[in-house]
């Protein structure tokens, strides 16, 4: 058994230790956010955040994830209570088919957690590992910028908090 901490909850996982996290998330925990795109770490549809860093879940075996903090799309917010980043994607209508978008949101989440004020060039560079085929890139960039602005405003009006990288 491997204990995985996913979205703040502990799960005892019986899958083989070499099973990539993606299949445990999708099949064992029945979470839809992380998507299968290539299984090769080339497209980013499966991106989740582990200890603050974006990770290709299709390539990461669960054996190395014991005790680490895994965040998926579902850990950010829900349809009724979307996170600021999810809300920004809705407000920008930043999806066509939407299949790559969960991975986009998770990679952007890692960026904005570490850096509230990324430049356009930093956003483009950070998002480079994730592919979109519908050509929604411009709206994805706009949504990330919108979320960053919202978070900056929230930071400014809230008491100062430690931001964990």
């Amino acid at each position: 058994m491997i204990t995985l901490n996913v979205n703040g909850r502990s799960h005892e996982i019986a899958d083989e230790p070499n099973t990539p996290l993606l299949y445990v998330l999708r099949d064992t925990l029945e979470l839809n956010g992380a998507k299968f795109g290539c299984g090769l770490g080339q497209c980013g549809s499966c991106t989740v955040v582990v200890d603050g860093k974006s990770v290709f879940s299709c390539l990461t075996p669960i054996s190395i994830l014991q005790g680490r903090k895994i965040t998926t799309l579902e850990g950010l917010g829900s349809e009724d209570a979307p996170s600021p980043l999810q809300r920004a994607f809705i407000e920008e209508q930043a999806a066509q088919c939407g299949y790559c978008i969960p991975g986009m949101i998770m990679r952007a989440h890692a960026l904005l957690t570490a850096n509230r004020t990324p430049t356009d060039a930093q956003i483009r560079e950070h998002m480079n590992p994730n592919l979109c085929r519908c050509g929604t890139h411009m709206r994805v960039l706009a949504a990330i910028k919108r979320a960053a602005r919202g978070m900056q405003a929230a930071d400014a009006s809230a008491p100062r908090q430690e931001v964990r990288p």
Partner: protein
Amino acid sequence: MNAPLVTPSRRDFLAGALVVSFSLRSLSSFAAEEQQSPKPPLPGSLKNALMLDAWIRVDADGTVTVFTGKCEIGQGIRTALIQVAAEELEVEARAIHLVTADTVRTANEGFTSGSNSMKDSGAAIRNAAAQVREILIGIAAERIGVAADQLHAQSGAIVGPGNRRIGYGELVAGEVLHAAAQPASRLKTPEALRVIGQSMPRVDIPGKVTGGVSYVQDLRLPNMVHARIVRPPSYEARLQSLDPSAIEKLPGVLKIVRDGSFLGVIAEREFQAITAAHALAAAAKWDSATKLPDEKNIFGFIESLPGQDYIIADKHAPSGAAAQTLEAVYRRPYQLHGSIGPSCAVASFDGDALTVWSHAQGMFPLRKAIAEMLHFAEDKVRCIHMEGAGCYGHNGADDAGADAALLARALPGRPVRVQWTREQEHQWEPYGPAMLSRARASLDASGNIVDWQYDVRSNTHSTRPPGAGQLLAARHLEQPFKPDAPKPIPQPEGGGDRNSIPLYAVPNVRVVHHFVPDMPLRVSAHRSLGAYLNVFSIESFMDELATAANADPVEFRLRHMQESRARKVISTAAERFGWSSTPLPRGRGRGFAFAQYKNLGAYCAVAIEAEVEHESGRVRLGRAVAAVDSGQAVNPDGIANQIQGGVVQSASWTLYESVRFEPTRILSQDWSTYPILRFGNVPESVDVHVIDAPGQPFLGTGEAAQGPAAAAIANAVAHATGMRIRDLPLNAARVKAAIGV
């Protein structure tokens, strides 16, 4: 899946009737059928399902369900159709439940393709909704005892004198909506519209960004098991030998399914299926590989293949004398759809009937193909559409449906989910065909085009079902099915010759489509079909002619364009872009292009800036501005999203993409061997101006930008470098070679 079904008997009859009409209706009869009809035609797809309750049902509790035979393929059609229904029915959009393509529940609207969904289903639903509203008003008038013109529909109720309201649910007793649709409807006037024309947020996005069950990939049925397919190493390689005994003993393996060269494995859990499939692939021995042509000489090879010539335009009128004549040849390579999510399907067989959940574009044709492949009666197969990753034409979705069907039949009682690998999608999906065109035109002494000759050489652009032989798995069976003989798609829509007739006013025009039946690589419909190459060719050539005529490219286009909507789109894009002839710094250029998709759909013009890095030949895209007229705009932001996406996707095709192959196999197996656009290379901005055309028919938007974006980029590169590149893609190596670094 939860909305009540209509009475099976009526639905069965309806479905049966539709199947007959569909099978009798060859592609070539589409236009003829409409012209020969003696009665005024029913709008859109109403002719595919004549009864209003095939489109709209109102339950006693007032619930409104709208049925479309089209599918959501990432284009936002779900939202636009709900808007259309809400508008004419006078109900809130959020109160409408929309059911998409399902062979048991919806009309047969063929394929969701060709940017036809608003024209077909949008028009059908809008008219059906208006007619349902009028029926409900009529019933209410009778019940209250006032004239119908004293009543109006509002928020799901009929409202009369003294603010008396009767909810729709109270008016629909019996079979009142089981009425034949009429050719004419009392549509709301353009001024009265309150939902159509609004950028209503897409209904599917909140679920998609928060982890809802949005795709067939997310479908989890009770007792569901997982499968993977093992494909041959090349198109025609056959399975010679396989010892599955060790693999059968692997953890979780339930069944290895082999039928001829079709090979798959089913396991309890997904990663067990993946592990077993790897072992199967290692154990399988295949015979000699397919012989593919030499990639370096692919266009010479295509030209050497026998063809059939179709003269699709041949007009002659008096004109000025030719002062100069230009000639050019343009080529596009094979290109991938490359959906980010590889194909997937779920199928369930109960020992008698089969249900398939698929992201293919046509549920009825898929049902027919699968039934034929399995030797089942068609009514023993049900196909239900669920979304997949973005669909840009005929990809592996139908084939995955067939895979799931074969596997589920082998394991009755357990729903089987089959997921293709990235490598399988790259190697096996039908590509957009390699094509070439030759253009020749003459200018008179004042720089006007007096003669235009254009030849395009292409394979077919549709190898879709309903023939079982169109399914990959069916070709690999012990008793294989043969693919249908390829056919050209006739004008006015066209396939390889789509958009090959210039919309410009030229006195002498001759256009020939050389249709090449032999397909060295598997090909089919790829977003915009032949329009991608034809618009790239025509609009590149227009720039070459403008240069020869010493004219500004935009002015030159307007000079040859008489159609007012086309002129407005061209002018708007140029204006919003700030088109000018001011010289740009070295290495930078601006490009412009225009087309009306299929010469009968949306009008789209694109202007773009490009910068060419002299040392590497790399192209960087700057500002892009597009203008589009899609007829009456139902959801302007949805249109803008499609055009933005089209510009960016076409930029990827145009700058980077080409399927690589060698004599024995396809080399483009993943995103490293078939690179596409990444964030580092997207344009600076893509602004879209939607030109509304109130009261005009819906024209469809999905494919309108592909050709114009390609040509605008090529024209910008030519402007930046002074060198004209006529071979796609305009990758760094090719640009570098052209500028002679």
